[in-house]
């Protein structure tokens, strides 16, 4: 199990290296920096929205568990 985690982590690290590498080659021309950087706002808003959804989901699960216990 932990071996799998290590593999996954190292794979992710490798991926992040590739991503940063790509940014070095094409300077300031990726999607996140185009169009007045509106995509940055979109990502920030989506992070907040998804965070709120996860919170609601957790509440929902908790209440379901309480209902089962009764």
């Amino acid at each position, binding site marked *: 199990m932990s071996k799998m985690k290590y593999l996954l982590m190292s794979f992710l690290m490798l991926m992040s290296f590739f991503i940063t590498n790509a940014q070095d080659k094409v300077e300031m021309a990726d999607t996140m920096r185009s169009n007045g950087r509106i995509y940055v706002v979109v990502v920030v808003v989506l992070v907040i929205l998804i965070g709120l959804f996860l919170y609601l989901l957790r509440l929902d699960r908790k209440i379901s568990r*309480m209902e089962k216990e009764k």
Partner: protein
Amino acid sequence: MRKTWWKILCVILLIYTFIAGLLTDVPRLPALSETIRNLYFHVCMWFCMMILFTASVVYAIKYLRSNKLVHDIYSRQFAVVGIVFGVLGYATGAVWMSYTWADPNNNSFQSFSAVAREPKLIGAAIALLIYFAYMILRDSIPDMDKRARVSAVYNIFAFALLFPTIWIIPRLLPSLHPGGENGNPALDFKDIDNNMRIVFYPAVIGWTLLGVWIVSLKIRLQLLKEKSLLQ
């Protein structure tokens, strides 16, 4: 998790609203410019509030017909979340208004006195205050059955007052706020750009489903509480 399909629909619709709402092209009108995107957020708050208050009054009538306390719990929770959405609509409207209506040549205090005379704002404030009074009235009556009956009757009164305060009087008076003399804002087919409609309608459904989701959680929690009280 119960009945998950509409919760998934809510998540998908709202994510779509935020992405498309920020990225699709909108017509640029003078003064409004890009802020018209607030249509997907500010206006949806009021739609959601209206739908939740309607559900609340339906359950209030159901309680009066059946005398089942479950209906009273439903009615209360719908009203509470409706108030939350109303306050959010008011707050977002305040921000939007201060950058589109306020006169840039006047100091902000002077333009505030003009803005504060808006019949739509006063109407919405009165409507929300009536619902605040509903919560206070409820919580001040200790007896369960009496509280349920009195607040159900008051709920019908509050809902009836929504119509003059936010639907009728603002339409009779001139206002900076769109809609009114020439019909419904946002719903009028001549009023809203076609491209905006394909984001606006899903946005209304998504926000309303979010409100209903929160209401359903609050109802289930309240039912659990009442059960432990009764046993």
